[in-house]
């Protein structure tokens, strides 16, 4: 049985809950009192992850940290459709990895702004917001040009990949850090498409898609 060390309001933990829901993977949740308890800095947790960060996933004897790394592991091991992280498509794997790194950049900016506003982290809020807007502009343009070519997802595939899951949560939660998505229409349309993937689940602060417009 897979165990996810989890905090409900963490976008990085949500990435894994989301993929496991898409893939129908059974798992057990161990709640970690990230806030206000700072349990991710406790002795027992630091033994699991010396970096003191969520999420951590345990599958039999394997213990993994880092949301992006765990996404790769889960898709490679459990995705029988080979679509989320296609093992035999080197170009696509390269693209996905590029956007997994980009997702880390979103965490470093948009998520940091949210931690500042909601949980009182001592970050430079203006730098965090400006950094998030720079990344959102790049993502929005990329998605807009993709739409012109008939592409719905971040990577060049006719289906969503890990890149979409990795970028989605902290884009979706950005307003909690004072980062509006008003100027990013292609991002907003893409968020709506992600919400319509079969098996989609929400987290606190993310609402389901509204009813689809009739054509």
């Amino acid at each position, binding site marked *: 049985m897979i165990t996810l060390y989890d905090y409900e309001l963490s976008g990085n933990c949500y990435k894994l809950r989301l993929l496991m829901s898409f893939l129908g993977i059974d798992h057990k949740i161990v709640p*970690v009192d990230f806030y206000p308890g700072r349990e991710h800095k406790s002795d027992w947790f630091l033994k699991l992850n010396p970096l003191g960060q969520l999420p951590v996933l345990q599958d039999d004897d394997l213990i993994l940290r880092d949301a992006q790394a765990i996404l790769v592991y889960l898709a490679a091991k459990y995705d029988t459709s080979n679509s989320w992280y296609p093992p035999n498509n080197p170009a696509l794997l390269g693209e996905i990895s590029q956007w997994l790194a980009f997702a880390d950049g979103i965490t470093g900016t948009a998520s940091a702004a949210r931690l500042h*506003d909601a949980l009182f982290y001592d970050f430079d809020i203006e730098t965090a917001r400006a950094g998030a807007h720079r990344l959102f502009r790049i993502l929005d343009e990329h998605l807009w040009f993709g739409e012109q070519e008939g592409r719905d997802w971040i990577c060049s595939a006719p289906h969503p990949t890990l890149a979409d899951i990795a970028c989605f949560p902290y884009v979706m939660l950005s307003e909690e850090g004072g980062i509006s998505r008003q100027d990013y229409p292609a991002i907003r349309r893409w968020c709506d498409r992600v919400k319509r993937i079969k098996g989609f689940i929400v987290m606190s602060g993310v609402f389901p898609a509204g009813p689809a417009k009739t054509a």
Partner: protein
Amino acid sequence: MMTQQKTCLDPVILNLWHPLGAVDEVASCIVVETELLDERVSFAVSEEGKVFVWRSRAGLRPGDRLDPLAVDDLLPARSAYGYVWTSLGAPSDDIFPIPEYAETDRRKLNAATFGVNVSAPRAIENFLDMGHFPYVHTDILGVEPHTEVKEYDVEISVDRDEILATRCRFYQPMASSASDSGAEVEYIYRVPHPYCSVLYKSSPLDETRMDVIAVFMQPLGEERVRAHMMLCVLDNTNADKAIKRFQQTIFGQDKPILENQFPKRLPLDPRAETPIRADKSAIAYRRWLSQKGLTYGVIPVAN
């Protein structure tokens, strides 16, 4: 004289007690800084649990060790319901009562203190609203088709100077961390302070008693708060962190709704926003704030 650009001039708000932080979450005698009504304030809790609050000053910075004997120019300070409270004006002797807090078999904890970009009155009004349960707290505090807010009673108690909403009933799939099935749950809401509300809801464990959940809004500015969530509940099975997780999940769902309210300050003119029958307690709340002559965090009725 203070020469800050922007401070609160509302005497009603200045003279109230306001929460600053959970006592359990600060190391003893270590200075913690926060904000209240657009002013920087600092506080510390001594080893004996005595609380000290002062306007922030050079020479006593966050992380410093406080010598309780050496600090002067203190603001009024109280420790109540697990939090440090202070006032920037001349407060009444006592903070409003929550008698259940003295019951020894209850679990008492701060579920979380969250920063929210909203005015305190908007946040209180949302807390009073049951109509949003099925849509915002789907499968937890409500579920379609159980969307009706049944008739309930609201009174403004003159003696206690507080709003009381009673006979509130709602079908909830999972009313608390101690629930194992859906139930029709009874609610009583009190608003004993313009920025604080106390909710009583039927306990899934004991039909003769009620869980107490309070929200204490610390106004950082007119449109920014720290929301402190106090729990005083009957639950003898779940770990603290499971109880906290349940409440944080609920609050995390409300947060984007609160932050998207427009205007951010609460309009007190009855014609400003169109209420429905379910908003009875909100109407009473706005009227009560108006009668107090409150101006901070609200848009007062134009004369």
